[in-house]
């Protein structure tokens, strides 16, 4: 599934995001050029997903509006950082998360199996975007979460790993 990069970037910039802190996967990767808009939308690259939540936290404390963008495998990796930022520091950092194998019927991929149960366990509101014409869900969900002062996740459904 190819999601149009420029449309994603426009949605995020239009939603007021200033920084995308990311470690991409193969579905999010093609968005790289579009997400790098100096002065409008800054792209911050990390070496490990756990860093992303903390850099976003620092940006938030400094008055910016950051977004974390990682794959669901990175969601698992970064659990302690997420726990700390969202629940101890109580910072409403939103995220776009690549949902590996979500579009593969009966996929045995454990990354797919655990993604939604994990978000539910953490009590994080999320929506799933499964087609390009559903991208408008991103802006709506992040606006609702911002209004409520809470974090939120948009899962981007992907095909095979």
């Amino acid at each position, binding site marked *: 599934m190819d999601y149009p990069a420029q449309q994603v970037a426009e949605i995020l910039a239009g939603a007021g995001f200033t*920084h995308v*802190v990311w470690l991409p996967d193969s579905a999010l990767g093609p968005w790289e050029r579009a997400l790098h808009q100096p002065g409008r939308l*800054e792209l*911050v*690259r*990390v*070496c*490990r997903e*756990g*860093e*992303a*939540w*903390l*850099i*976003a*936290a*620092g*940006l*938030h*404390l*400094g*008055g*910016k509006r*950051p977004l974390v963008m990682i794959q669901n495998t990175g969601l698992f990796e970064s659990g*302690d*950082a997420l*726990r*700390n*930022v969202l629940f*101890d*520091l*109580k*910072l409403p950092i939103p995220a776009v998360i690549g949902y590996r194998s979500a579009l593969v019927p009966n996929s045995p991929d454990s990354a797919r199996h655990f993604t939604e149960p994990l978000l539910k366990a953490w009590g994080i509101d999320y929506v799933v975007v499964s087609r390009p014409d559903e991208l408008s869900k991103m802006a709506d969900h992040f606006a609702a979460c911002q209004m409520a002062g809470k974090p939120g996740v948009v899962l981007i459904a992907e095909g095979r790993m």
Partner: protein
Amino acid sequence: MPGTQSKPVTRMPFIPALQVLADLRTDQVVVTTMGSAREWPKLSQHPLDLHYIPSAMGQAPALGLGIALAKPDREVIVLNGDGCQLMNLGVLVTIIASRARNLTLIVFDNGIYEVTGGQQTAAATTERGGIDFAGMARAAGFESVRSFNRLSDWQRDAASTLALPGPRFVALSVEPLCLSEDATAYQLESPGPIAERLARFQSALAVS
């Protein structure tokens, strides 16, 4: 147990090493974590102090980097431990890649996990008795790198080190504060509710 006998390392006392920074600090943000979060509040009560407690161990440099990117005209100093740094060596590369110029990362290397009672880090059990954090920083791309293991040297050169072009990396070899077998002898004390501390910090940062 093979490999657990470290070679003697010259180390400076931890509190006086922190005091050097406290004496030099003006209007920088200072992010503390773990051991430094326990001791720094005894030396400094500044609105731009951010005690990262409760923490995600190893993540303080990333938090400081985010603040530095948000506030490029404000210097940010992160006081990290060696155990914390070992948990996330990749952040050295992340800092360099970010192009942040207003960040100083200081690693206090005592070779142990102090808050859990003094167990050796993996680095301390290498045959060399430690690892070269400064060398790692240079390899990651830091150009302003200094390391000190004598207090007199640190006292003499700290000001000029903080004046080097950023980002800066400083490795300080320090003595453990506590090597008790009783893990409760060295516990982090809460500096107060996190929500209130963050709100105060954000307010101070916003007007600075």
